[in-house]
C-alpha cells in the first residue's frame, strides 16, 4: 500500500469488502434474532434515505461524525490512540452551552464564532490534558482519554443539574442559548445548517495540514517510527500535546455545533457514543481526512436508519454498535491479511510474509 494509485484503489477495495462481509455477518445475527435481514436492511435504507427529510437528517446525523472522525484520524496518524473524542466533544459542548445564553446582544456571526471558539477551547483543553499526561508523565493515552470520558460525563451532569440548570428546574437541562448563537436551519423543515459546511471546511483543512504542512509530516513520521523521528529531532513531546489538543478541539467544535444548531442547550447526555463510532469512521476512511466525509455519511445513515429499524422490526438500535465493532475488526484483519498473505495471517509466517512483499534478500540480512 502506498502513495500509488493501485495502492489507493486496493485500500478502497478493502474497505468495501470489509463492509460487505460485515453486512453478511449482520444478516446472520439478524436471522438469529428472528428478524428478516432484507426487511431490516430495507428499513435501514428507508430510514436513512427514503424521503428528502430523512436524507437531510442523515446528513445532519453525519456531521458530528465528521468532526469526531477528523479528530480520530489526526490523532491516529500520529499513533496517538485518542479514544476520548466523546469526552472532548462533551467539554466543547459544555463550553459552548455555558456561554451561549450570554451571547444575546451579540452580532450573529460573532456569536457563532464565539461558540465555535469555546467548543474548540473546551475540547482542546481536554485533549491537551491527555497529551500532556502522555508526553510528560508517560501515561498511556488510551487509558487517560477513556478516564476523561467518564469524568467529562460527570462534569456535564453536574452542570446541567446545577449551575447551568434552566430556571424552572423541572428537568436536567441547561439554560437555552441566545438566538444569536444558534445556527439557522435552511430549507426547512430540514435541519441542514452551516455547521455542516464548517465540517467540510475542516476536513479540507485537515487534509492540507496533514499532507502539506511540516508539522503534519512530522506527525505522520512520528506515527510510523517513533525512534527514527526522535533521532531526527522531531519534537515528539510538542507534537503529542499539540496533536491531541487539536484532535480534542475538532471534537469540541463538533460539540459546539451540536449545541448551536440542534439542541440549543445542554442535556445530561450530549453524545450517543460518537467518539467511539468515529473510530470506525476513521478506519474505514483509512485515516484520510477527505475520505472521512463519505465514511461519516455511511455511518450517519446507519444511525438514522436504525431508528426506523427499531420501529419496524423491533431490533434494538444498539445493533449499530455491533456493526461498528465488526467493521473495525474485519477491516484490520483484512489489512493484515493483505499485507502478509492469507496463510501468513492465520499461521503466522513472517517468511511467507516477506515473500509476499517481495522483500529483496539483502533487506533480510544483518
Amino acid at each position: 500500500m502506498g502513495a500509488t494509485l493501485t495502492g489507493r484503489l486496493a485500500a478502497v477495495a478493502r474497505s468495501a469488502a470489509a463492509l460487505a462481509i460485515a453486512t453478511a455477518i449482520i444478516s446472520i445475527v439478524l436471522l438469529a434474532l428472528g428478524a428478516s435481514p432484507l426487511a431490516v436492511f430495507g428499513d435501514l435504507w428507508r430510514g436513512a434515505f427514503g424521503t428528502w427529510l430523512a436524507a437531510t437528517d442523515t446528513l445532519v446525523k453525519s456531521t458530528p461524525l465528521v468532526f469526531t472522525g477528523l479528530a480520530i484520524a489526526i490523532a491516529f496518524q500520529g499513533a496517538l490512540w485518542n479514544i476520548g473524542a466523546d469526552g472532548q466533544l462533551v467539554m466543547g459542548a459544555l463550553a459552548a452551552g455555558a456561554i451561549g445564553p450570554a451571547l444575546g446582544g451579540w452580532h450573529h456571526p460573532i456569536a457563532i464564532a464565539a461558540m465555535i471558539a469555546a467548543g474548540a477551547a473546551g475540547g482542546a483543553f481536554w485533549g491537551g490534558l491527555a497529551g500532556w499526561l502522555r508526553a510528560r508523565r508517560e501515561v498511556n493515552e488510551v487509558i487517560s482519554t477513556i478516564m476523561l470520558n467518564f469524568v467529562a460525563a460527570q462534569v456535564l451532569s453536574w452542570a446541567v443539574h446545577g449551575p447551568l440548570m434552566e430556571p424552572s428546574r423541572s428537568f436536567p437541562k441547561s439554560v437555552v442559548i441566545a438566538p444569536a448563537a444558534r445556527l439557522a436551519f435552511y430549507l426547512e423543515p430540514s435541519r441542514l445548517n452551516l455547521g455542516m459546511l464548517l465540517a467540510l471546511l475542516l476536513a479540507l483543512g485537515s487534509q492540507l495540514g496533514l499532507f502539506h504542512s511540516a508539522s503534519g509530516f512530522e506527525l505522520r513520521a512520528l506515527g510510523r517510527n517513533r525512534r527514527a523521528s526522535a533521532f531526527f529531532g522531531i519534537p515528539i513531546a510538542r507534537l503529542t500535546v499539540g496533536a491531541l489538543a487539536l484532535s480534542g478541539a475538532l471534537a469540541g467544535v463538533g460539540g459546539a455545533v451540536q449545541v448551536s444548531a440542534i439542541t440549543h442547550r445542554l442535556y445530561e447526555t450530549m453524545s450517543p457514543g460518537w467518539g467511539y463510532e468515529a473510530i470506525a469512521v476513521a478506519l474505514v476512511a483509512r485515516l484520510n481526512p477527505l475520505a472521512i466525509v463519505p465514511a461519516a455519511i455511511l455511518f450517519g445513515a446507519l444511525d438514522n436508519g436504525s431508528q426506523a429499524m427499531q420501529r419496524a422490526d423491533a431490533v434494538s438500535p444498539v445493533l449499530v454498535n455491533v456493526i461498528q465493532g465488526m467493521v473495525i475488526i474485519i477491516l484490520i484483519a483484512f489489512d493484515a491479511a493483505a499485507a502478509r498473505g492469507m496463510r501468513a495471517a492465520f499461521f503466522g509466517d513472517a517468511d511467507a510474509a516477506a515473500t509476499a512483499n517481495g522483500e529483496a534478500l539483502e533487506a533480510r540480512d544483518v
Partner: protein
Amino acid sequence: MLAATAITRRFGRTLALDRVDFQAYPGEIHALVGENGAGKSTLINIFAGRLKPDRGAVTLDGAALAGGSAHAALQAGIAAVYQSPMLFERMSWEENLALGGFGAGTSRSDLAGAADRARILATRLGFSLPPAGATVERCSVGERVRLEILRALSFDPRVLILDEPTGVLAPAELDAFLYTLRRLRTEGRIVVIVTHKLAEAIAVADRITVLRQGRVAAVRLPTETNAAELARLMIGDVAASAMTADGPSPIVKRVAATPNVEHDAPALVVKNLILVNDGRRLLDDICVSVAAGEIAGVAGVDGNGQRELVEVMAGIRTPTSGGLRVAADRNAMAVIAQNRDLDGLILDLTLWENLLLARALRDRFARGGWLRRSRAKAFCTDVLDRYRIRSAGATSLAVALSGGNRQRLAVARALAGDPRVLVVHDVCRGLDLRATAEVHRRLREFAAAGGAVLLISSDLDELIALSTSLYVMTRGRLVAVAARDRDAERIGLLMSGAAHS
C-alpha cells in the same frame, strides 16, 4: 554429517540461493564465506530451520530436516547463534540459560541447578560467567556472546552454527574463542562459521565454502588457498582485480586533504562529555576535536559507548555534563545511525519523505511550515540518480529498498543536506564490497571538499584505510592512537587492554 543438496530459495524476484550443495563432517570447523548478499545468512537460516528452502533438502546424518521451524531444528540437533542478540535482557543470565536446555524444572531450585550445569560447561570451554543474578542488560557484549553460545550448547547439538561471531569480540577474546571452537571440534561436533573475515576463516577453519551470488563458487582447504584467492572467488575475477580482501582498491586515489577552508576553528569540538546513567559512566570525559578535511576514526568493539556518543551528537540524549560545538548552525552536522531500519528510515513512508527527515532538508523544503512537495520529489529523483540508488522512484516506499540501497539513501540524505560535519556509525555494516568502496569514496570526497568526519566503526580495516587521525573507544573513554601505533595488532591490544572480558 550435515548435508544440503540443491538448495534453492527465492525472495520475491531475488534468487537468494541457486542449487547450493554443502557438506560438513563431524569434528570439522567449516567456514562459510561470501559477500553480504551472497546468501550466507539465508543458507544458515535454512539449516537452523528458520526458513524453508523452495527446493532441495537438508539432511543431518542421513535424516531429512523438516524445515520452517527453529524448534524442530533444535530438536534435530542444530543450534544457531546469530549476529543480532537473542537473549532476554531484563532477565538474569541464569534465567536465560534455564530457558535453554539447562533447565526443565518448575521451581526455583531448578534455576540453581541450571546455573550449575551451565558453570560446568563453561569451565570446560574456558569461559568465564557473569556474577550470579546479573541481568543480561548489565553484561558486556563479549559476555553476551558467550552466554548465547552456552545456551546453544545446552541443547547438546550435533551442529553449532555461528553467524559472524567474532564481529563483537575484542582481539584478546579471540584466542579464548578459538580454544572453545577447538574443544567443540574434539567433541565431534560440526561447527559452521559464517564470516566475511577471510584471514580468520583461513586461520580457524578446516574447510571453506565460498558463496557468490547464491551459488557455491568453490570449496577449499585453507592450506591450499589464501585471502586473495578467496576474495577473487567471492566477487569474481574482474572486480577482484580492482579490490583486495583488505580494503578498497589502491587504485582509488587518496585525495590530498588541502581544503580551501580555514583551519583555525575546528569543525567539531567535543569537550568533557560525560554521560552517567544508572550509576554507570557510559561516556567518560570525552574530548575530541575534528578539523575540516579530517576523518577522525573511532575504533572500538560495540558496547563501549559508541551508541550513546552518537545519540548525544544527534541531540536525542542530554549529557550529564560537557557538550559539543559545531562550527556552523545546527544543521551543519549530519548523523547516520548504526541501525538504519530503526533509527534511519521510516519504511512506511516514501523515499522523498524519508529524505525530509534530515533537518537540513526539512528546513529547505518546508519553508514557513508548508511542504513544497513537488520540489521535494524532484530533488529526491535527482538524489536517487546521483547516488545510483535502485528504486521504484521517489514516490515508492522505503520498505521496497534492499539493504544496500537503504544505506545508500541514508548516506545520500546525510550528504544532500550540505553538512560541515558527518558523524557515521558502522556505516558500511551489511554492505557488499562494491557498496562499501563507494561509501568510502564519498567519505573521502566529502573530507577533501572541507568536511569533517567522525567515523565510528568496529571494522579496523575501514578505519585504518580512511582515518587521518585515530582513536580507540573503550569503556566510554576515548584514547588517541599515535601514528606509529597504527596497525591492527596494536590497535587491537589497545581495544582489548581495557575492554570487558
